[in-house]
């Protein structure tokens, strides 16, 4: 609990006075629990609400927009003070958002945005996927310090926005550094097993000694690739530098064990900044910016990854 508080405090820099929000009721329409990250987001949101004394009404939509719209209407009927919405798709929200506006209930979008007029919601709290990729690229640029580096890339699911944006960000960061070159790039579908299979083929096609770094669009693929590198008789983290994105517990464990070098956090704490904005809005009518970008924190071997692992492993990842 103490470790958790320490870490949350870094993201939620200003914990407001509990009494101020004590009688607030907030509805939270979550997409579902399709990934460990989403489960962690749900856990952290509940913790955030509890620590502020907010009564959180939680609705799991099981990946269906119609369930989310139903949940929103039910929140409006119950007369909640505000609504948190993690939208499953971008389109089709105008009507229900107008209903919320008519009932004067502010809506905060979490993690994803919608295609609707931006006066229909208070603000959107999301990470910047392109920025995450560029943090990874910048880390590698600094790490190799001018030496030649042949990079292999494990992309996410082809055509998905995280895959496109994380690739773009990374390429932006390494462009202009001629010593860095992506020599192979293939999809690993964001899964461990495909990450391992594709890394095996990279190792054979390029030769393990000719690969200087691996950039994976998520940690799961990196964890799979680490096993492939070990089975090829190389030392992951030393012979091949590994940087990935998400900062799931197993990545912290891998960094703590020296098998991985860096991961960029996609924080599950989207609710913290959202609730801060709502509390400020209710206290004195402060309008938050339309987009609140969450921090993309870089974790390397310099951080106490073992402690972060212990803290994160029970969040539901």
């Amino acid at each position, binding site marked *: 609990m103490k470790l958790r508080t320490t870490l949350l405090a870094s993201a939620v820099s200003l914990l407001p006075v509990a009494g101020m929000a004590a009688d607030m009721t907030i509805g939270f329409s979550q997409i579902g629990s399709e990934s460990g990250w989403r489960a962690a987001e749900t856990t952290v949101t509940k913790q955030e609400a509890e620590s502020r004394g907010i009564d959180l009404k939680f609705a799991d939509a099981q990946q269906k927009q119609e369930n989310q719209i139903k949940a929103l209407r039910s929140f409006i009927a119950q007369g909640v003070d505000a609504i948190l919405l993690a939208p499953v798709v971008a389109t089709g929200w105008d009507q229900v958002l107008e209903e919320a506006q008519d009932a004067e209930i502010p809506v905060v979008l979490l993690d994803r945005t919608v295609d609707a007029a931006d006066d229909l919601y208070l603000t959107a709290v999301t990470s910047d996927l392109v920025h995450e990729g560029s943090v990874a690229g910048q880390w590698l640029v600094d790490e190799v310090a001018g030496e030649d580096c042949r990079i292999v890339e494990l992309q996410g699911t082809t055509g998905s926005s995280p895959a496109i944006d994380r690739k773009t960000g990374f390429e932006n960061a390494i462009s202009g550094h001629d010593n860095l070159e992506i020599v192979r790039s293939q999809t690993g579908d964001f*899964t461990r097993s495909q990450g391992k299979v594709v890394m095996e083929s990279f190792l054979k096609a390029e030769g393990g000694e000719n690969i200087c770094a691996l950039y994976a669009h998520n940690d799961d693929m990196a964890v799979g690739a680490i096993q492939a590198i070990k089975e090829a008789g190389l030392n992951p983290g030393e012979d091949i530098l590994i940087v990935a994105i998400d900062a799931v517990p197993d990545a912290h464990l891998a960094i703590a064990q020296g098998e991985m070098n860096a991961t960029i956090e996609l924080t599950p704490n989207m609710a913290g900044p959202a609730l801060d904005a709502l509390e400020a809005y209710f206290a004195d009518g402060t309008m938050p910016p339309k987009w609140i970008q969450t921090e993309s924190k870089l974790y390397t071997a310099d951080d106490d990854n073992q402690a972060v692992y212990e803290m994160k492993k029970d969040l539901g990842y």
Partner: protein
Amino acid sequence: MSATTPSVFKRILPQLIILGVVLAFNVAVFPGFLNIEIHNGRVFGNLIDVLNRGAPVALLCIGMTLVIATRGIDLSVGAVMAIAGATAASLVSEGHHWTTALIGALAVGSLCGLWNGFLVAVLRIQPIVATLVLMVAGRGIAQLITEGTILTFIDPGLIRLGAGTIVGIPTPILIWIALGAGAIFAVRRTALGMLIEAIGINEASSRLAGINSRVLLICVYAMTGFCAALAGVIVAADIKGADANNAGLWLELDAILAVVIGGNSLLGGRFSILASLLGALIIQSVNSLILLSGMPPEFNLIIKSVLILAILVIQSPKVGHLIYMLRASSLHVQPEKSSSRPVLTPKEDAQ
């Protein structure tokens, strides 16, 4: 029915030739494809990868061939893989011995197969619908077991099944070859294969002829569940974790495709497990070709579908007949030329 060596060879010749051609493509894009080295006491090379990575589909297609031979189909094998992997992972992480976990997972997989068999053979639900139930529900069951997370484990015994080696050869290769050989022996050295074919050709008359088709059907589905469970344990052991969302995802389709490439009819009847296994290796060689070619991933599925389409077109009876006619007419003029394209020999009698 007695499978003499020349007739078996004649049956699998088209698959062997296709496999050879796809492997030749692999060598063309990556000249070191055939190199096999020993690294850290394990054989290491692209050919080994094809055999190793082909293990899940190879295991699935053993059971799938039998089910399809009875004129059925099993769409649930991918989900059963996820359930079995989750079962094995949760048993070892609760502190059980890895053999207990393996037996538990295989038992759960067989139970899933028995359920499918019950729906098909006793309640007479059409196989595609009956197994769709478990295909959809199975991942939910697996997620209940893993509680929605990737359940990781460090038990060396269980990991050896997926990522380990025996005398330098990756364990999955030995497992699928052993199970495949066992299954071929069981169906071809006993009357079992003929009984299964009889059900597929005409179940009513096979029953009138005295075959207990109900029990046999249930057994065949249970066998498929068993194969799927073994594949699921291997996949989980390979990544040292059970990923309920992704383990075996869409592999039921690859398994069906392997059976089809193996020249088996989806309408049941005569079957060849050996040809299906070659089909599984062909699919894995195509996957390997895509990875080695270095093409952008946007092309992966297009390349795969074009290659598979080409393989199926070459195998189709119409094309086979056309080529036979062309060859017969050219045989009139230049008899020597015919031997240059053995792939084109029609095999209708063997299909």
